[in-house]
């Protein structure tokens, strides 16, 4: 989707946070120098294009129990089958194929650390592949989006 200038400014400015007040869109419109109707129209166009993930609170995953980044080195011919097996877990919310010896990367989130270890043990037993288990130690930047620098 090609972004008009107002929509690009809207995203750059408000993907990190919106005003928390009774009429947030009016305040945002005033800041961006447009009308509330124009601002709503931008959001609706984004949503129709599937380019708006959502508007609303982003909850802190790390407080919600435990999570870890895990990876497996899967032989190419088994990738589909193992990936499907992993994606079936409701505890997996991201699962990416990546070009590397460790070619399957997924994020596990659950109520506690033990719960995640059980899933990793189960996966190891079922697939015969030893997962990398890389829990976060320190966060230097967390899911704040990124600047849409140099948009047309």
């Amino acid at each position: 989707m090609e972004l008009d200038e107002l929509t690009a400014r809207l995203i750059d400015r408000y993907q990190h946070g919106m005003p928390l007040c009774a009429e947030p869109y009016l305040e945002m419109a005033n800041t961006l120098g447009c009308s509330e109707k124009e601002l709503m129209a931008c959001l609706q166009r984004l949503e129709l294009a599937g380019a708006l993930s959502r508007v609303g609170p982003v909850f802190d995953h790390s407080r919600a129990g435990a999570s870890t980044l895990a990876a497996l080195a899967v032989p190419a011919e088994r990738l589909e089958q193992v990936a499907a097996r992993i994606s079936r877990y409701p505890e997996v919310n991201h699962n990416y194929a990546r070009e590397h010896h460790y070619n399957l990367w997924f994020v596990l989130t659950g109520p506690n650390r033990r719960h995640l270890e059980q899933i990793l043990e189960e996966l190891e037993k079922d697939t015969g592949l030893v997962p990398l288990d890389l829990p976060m130690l320190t966060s230097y930047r967390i899911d704040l989006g990124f600047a849409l620098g140099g948009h047309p």
Partner: protein
Amino acid sequence: MSVCTSRFDETLAQRLIQLTESGLPLVEDPWTWLAEQLGISVESTLDLLKRLQAEGAIRRIAAVPNHYRLGYRHNGMTVWDVCDEQMPRLGELIGAQPFVSHCYRRPRRADWPYNLFAMVHGRSREEIDSYREHLRFLLGTASRADEMLVSSRILKKTGLRLASPRSSRSWLASEGR
């Protein structure tokens, strides 16, 4: 969660999570909508949101774009073997780059020497390659080795549902962690 939070407040907070975790309806007054759903005033709804934000349960309230649909189809997970002593300073520096969306320190493993992860996104392979070069420049000799793992396919990507039907109570409200 704060120990002095009343049961009533906790139930409200859980209702709020259920109602908003997949996004607010795109209406001019979303908090009025939420207040009606919760059966409380707009003012109390804003107070509840502020409290959850102050406690850290809500990280931010934002218009979250789908970067992939905006043309940012290339993402690279850059991984670095950074000297431990310099990690606090360099982690902050890398995390502050505008093109980095996530930046974490993670443990090294026997066959995995990398302890700093930074996700970069762009509209072309060249763009993310140039970001990696920039991070290399910033880290200098403090990083002994690095790689960039580009994604060949997204196999699953869903927002986390905290108030999933599988858990009788929201993890956010659980204690003793």
